[in-house]
């Protein structure tokens, strides 16, 4: 079966986990391996970015949060972006134009990540949460419907960031994941050591460039199959007719 079909199934699982609270299960201790607002009325998992900010605001070092993020990073790196994150799934669903921008600088997410952590420190407030488009979608809108929130300035700010992100996602494939997501920024640091990884066989590669065209993140899998932007979605694996690219979840070979 093609990887893309498996991926739709696990992405559906991510959305289901994100909304499992609808069954009445309360908040658990589990960190979500992606960007999913914990203020969402149906969330049962903790948003890692929100947790890090809150712990910084409280003046406590987030040992538990960092440990859990390290565990996710070692398991799959940005694989969670491609296979699990509901906001990443939304990016996929909205990429109507399938336009690829290659070689565009994508360090914005590190700037957002550092800004988020330093902002929490300097302002003693969860500043990123007030702009987070995932929070707009999963928290602001549901609470408006539930009658807890009202249309006010913070709500409009949330809608503005969500609107801008949606426009970006429609115009550029995986716009949020590629350029702005702080969670993607954290997970990308583990892309070269994660168990889930791409392998590339030089012997069979014909340098046809099909993988480049298929990649939603605008990277060149046949040149760098461990790029920090790789979400291990397997689009290149499906596109590679000689089968030079394969996705593995196992300890890495040396080299």
């Amino acid at each position: 079966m093609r990887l893309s079909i498996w991926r739709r199934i696990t992405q559906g699982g991510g959305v289901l986990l994100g909304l499992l609270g609808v069954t009445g299960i309360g908040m658990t201790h589990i960190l979500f391996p992606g960007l999913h607002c914990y203020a969402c009325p149906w969330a049962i998992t903790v948003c890692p970015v929100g947790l890090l900010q809150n712990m910084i605001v409280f003046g406590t070092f987030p040992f538990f949060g960092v440990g859990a993020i390290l565990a996710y990073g070692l398991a799959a790196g940005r694989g969670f972006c491609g296979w699990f994150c509901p906001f990443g799934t939304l990016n996929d669903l909205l990429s109507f134009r399938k336009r690829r921008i290659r070689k565009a600088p994508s360090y914005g997410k590190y700037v957002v990540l550092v800004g988020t952590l330093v902002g929490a420190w300097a302002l003693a407030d969860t500043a990123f949460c007030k702009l987070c488009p995932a929070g707009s979608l999963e928290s602001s809108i549901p609470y408006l419907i539930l009658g807890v929130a009202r249309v006010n300035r913070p709500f409009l700010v949330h809608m503005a960031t969500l609107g801008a992100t949606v426009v970006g996602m429609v115009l550029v494939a995986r716009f949020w994941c590629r350029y702005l997501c702080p969670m993607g920024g954290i997970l990308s640091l583990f892309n070269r050591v994660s168990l889930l990884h791409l392998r590339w066989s030089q012997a069979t590669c014909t340098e046809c460039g099909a993988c480049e065209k298929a990649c939603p993140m605008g990277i060149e899998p046949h040149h760098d199959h461990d790029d920090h932007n790789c979400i291990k979605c397997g689009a290149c694996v499906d596109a590679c007719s000689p089968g030079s690219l394969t996705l593995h979840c196992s300890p890495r070979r040396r080299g």
Partner: protein
Amino acid sequence: MSGWRNAAAVLALLGLAVVAALPVAAQEKILSFAIEPAQVEVGAGERATVAVRIENASVREADNVVAAWTGPGGFLLDPAPQEIAVLAPFGSADLAVWILVPEDAPPGSVVGSLEFSYTYCIGDLCFQVFESRDVALVVRAPADVGPTEPTVPPSGQVPTSGQTQPSGRSATRAWIPYAVAAFVAVLAVVAAQIARSLGLRWPLYAVLLLATGGGLAYGVALGQHEQAQSIAAVLCTSCVGIEEAAARAPQLTAQEMTRIRAISEPVDLLVFHAPWCRSCPFAEALVEQVGALNARVGYRFVDVEREPEIARRYGVIQSGRTVVPAIVRLGVDRILFGIEDLESRLVLLLEEGA
């Protein structure tokens, strides 16, 4: 290869940014000090009295508000001004300060400096703030000479020094773990590069697995998993941008006050809050004001982290999430969430069924 360099650069940047941010303390001046009168005339060896109006315009409680004389020398605060142990959010206090002028003070104007210090906390994080205000004193010439031309200070206003003195500010932020973590992260990247150049991968995995297991185990030992759960389970309306935290005290209009005074039936309110919630003090201050206006309005503050079963019983938990601040009137099946337009919404709730 370039990816590694990128990762190294990013980690180093992260570490640097965190370290660089250390002096950027989150503290702000939450109290304002106004000194009356603007200028005091006093004889040598006598006491000058000034009244200090202290206002807390924030949602945080200020503790241990102390005044001290920082110059010029020879002057004393006698008797020592009272220490204000707690100044509630949106509260205010008046402090009388007696300044004893030395016997040998030469006639003329003296600009002295009163330094106020206080502390406030955000969660486990506490700050001590020092703030100076100038006091203009005009020392009269000895009585036998008679009142001479008073030396007039440049303006009638009490000049304020405006800025807090950086040297006097201190933040008790636990920054050491952050610096250590940033250092370890940079070290890990360097070690990884060295290991890679030697063709070894296991040392890197050993370090990462150790950090993962250690972080999780130590975090759980500190109870951080419970903390994570409670941070996520209790939602304060100003934390995720449902509304803004109030930077002002609640203001009831004259009409609203009349309507509150007119309530003739006993009303019982439960005010649900969390200690770290930024929008809650506003709701608490408003209910206190209402209670002071009409004795028939009884209220109780409920900390949802300490008494979650009460929150559950009164339905403050919305779809598994506790939203604070929330006001419940016993016997009325409607909950007021948040603080936006809370004055008018609360008055309507109080009048319900009347």
